[in-house]
């Protein structure tokens, strides 16, 4: 019998549940069992999950939260090594670090820093999220900052960012930039074959690389409430750049001219 995939620890930061190896169904069952065994102890408590290098999406974190909720335990944080898992927790409004400063679970009883915290935290939500892997069908990446994917986004996968999206690969699935309403957000991809793209609240299902620039990198931006796609040309950038960027470029140009 291998070690239990669910270990519950009491630390100075409150209760922490550590998830080990094994498939999620087994873990959910084990967690349910463990909480059930001492239901009275856990009732009304708050716990943090430490998931290590396990990749969890929003649904899976929710499933874990639901088991806890069933026993009247509140999930307040998910500490994870993988930025994607942290982003998923963040998008559910959960903390991503179990540091006492962020939000102490209860008025502290015993203050001494019992154990050194490993540097798993330190992730700021407004930063960009870099994912170095292909997002396959069914994958969902949600982040309130910018997202960079080094790999492809396949049909049936989605990338949703509060800021810009850059795909260093082929975009075949769905990308939504400026999901919080930022109309200046852009979507860049080495190859553009999406099912659908969205910028702010504008949806387009027919963004296609023009035949003349097929195979080149492209950037999609909003212009006059329409998503337009332009090829990215070496040394020039996007052929018909977003107005905001154009003005910035030109002001730099005039400054340069005045100096010479």
């Amino acid at each position, binding site marked *: 019998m291998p070690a239990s995939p669910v270990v519950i620890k009491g630390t100075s930061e409150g209760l922490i549940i550590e998830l080990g190896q094994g*498939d999620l169904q*087994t873990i959910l069952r084990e967690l349910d069992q463990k909480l059930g065994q001492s239901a009275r102890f856990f009732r009304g408590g708050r716990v943090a999950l430490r998931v290590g290098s396990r990749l969890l999406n929003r649904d899976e974190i929710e499933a874990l939260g639901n088991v806890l909720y069933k026993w009247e335990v509140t999930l307040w944080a998910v500490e994870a090594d993988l930025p994607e898992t942290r982003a998923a927790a963040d998008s559910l409004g959960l903390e991503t670090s179990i540091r006492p400063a962020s939000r102490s679970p209860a008025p502290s009883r015993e203050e001494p820093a019992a154990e050194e915290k490993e540097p798993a935290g330190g992730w700021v939500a407004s930063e960009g999220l870099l994912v170095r892997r292909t997002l396959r*069908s*069914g994958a969902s990446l949600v982040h309130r900052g910018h997202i960079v994917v080094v790999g492809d986004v396949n049909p*049936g996968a989605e990338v949703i960012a509060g800021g810009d999206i850059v795909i260093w690969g082929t975009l075949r699935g769905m990308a939504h930039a400026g999901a919080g309403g930022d109309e200046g957000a852009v979507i860049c991809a080495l190859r553009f074959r999406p099912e659908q793209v969205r910028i702010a609240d504008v949806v387009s299902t027919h963004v296609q690389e023009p035949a003349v620039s097929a195979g080149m990198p492209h950037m999609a931006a909003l212009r006059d409430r329409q998503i337009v796609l332009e090829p990215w040309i070496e040394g020039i950038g996007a052929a018909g750049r977003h107005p905001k960027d154009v003005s910035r470029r030109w002001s730099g140009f005039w400054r340069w001219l005045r100096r010479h």
Partner: protein
Amino acid sequence: MGGRIITITSGKGGVGKTTTTANIGVGLALLGKSVVCVDTDIGLRNLDLVMGLDNRIVYDLVDVVEGRCRLKQALVRDRHLSELYLLPAAQTRDKTAVSAAQMQALCDELRKEFDFILLDSPAGIETGFHNALAPADEVIIVTTPDVSAVRDADRAIGFVEAQEKGPARLIINRIKSDLVRKGEMLTIEDVVELLAIELIGIVPEDETIIMSTNRGTPAAMDRKSLAGQAFRNIAKRLTGQEVPFMPLPSNDGWLKRLTRFVRPASS
């Protein structure tokens, strides 16, 4: 170390997982390997029919797991190949009858006795799929060249990668070469580019598969079957042999073939 546990899965149903399992099993046995094909599709037993062993089943996988019989008692030997065995699924139970840990323990037992343990996974991405994936050393993904099968294969590969199983390798089944040529079907290149895993087999659409399935003799036994040849090649590649992919059959006339021969198309 012992034998290699290879799970054959697809995501989508009906793309030929069971046929593939039976035929690779035959292919490996023809190469002199000892092979057991395990039907993990509990409740929807099929592999026994494809292998023509349905009337010889006494005990099944669930009987073994629940201790009603010894493992050896449940193994059914093939009618033709003495090194090929089947461990059938239970037809009267469902996926919850076996856990991933039990599957793992069962496969570890089989590993001591056989060179290859081929697990025929159920369709879908639910419990049965995860149970079949849990003990895998290697994974073979079967797809057909159509968008829905490819998308489901992509999903299945996502799970394989998330659980750090693998390497996952790809078989593209039921290629209709004339449709590909007309541009009405995804090409092999399209599929491989999207799924981005190693290709280990291309199997043409072949009527002999249907006939052999109904007869209960896998096409790999049939020297003249084109699909059978493709499956035997896959078995050879699994044992480490380098076998080139065979050219796809065509229904074109001799003139067209000649022009293609004179002006070779991009492979």
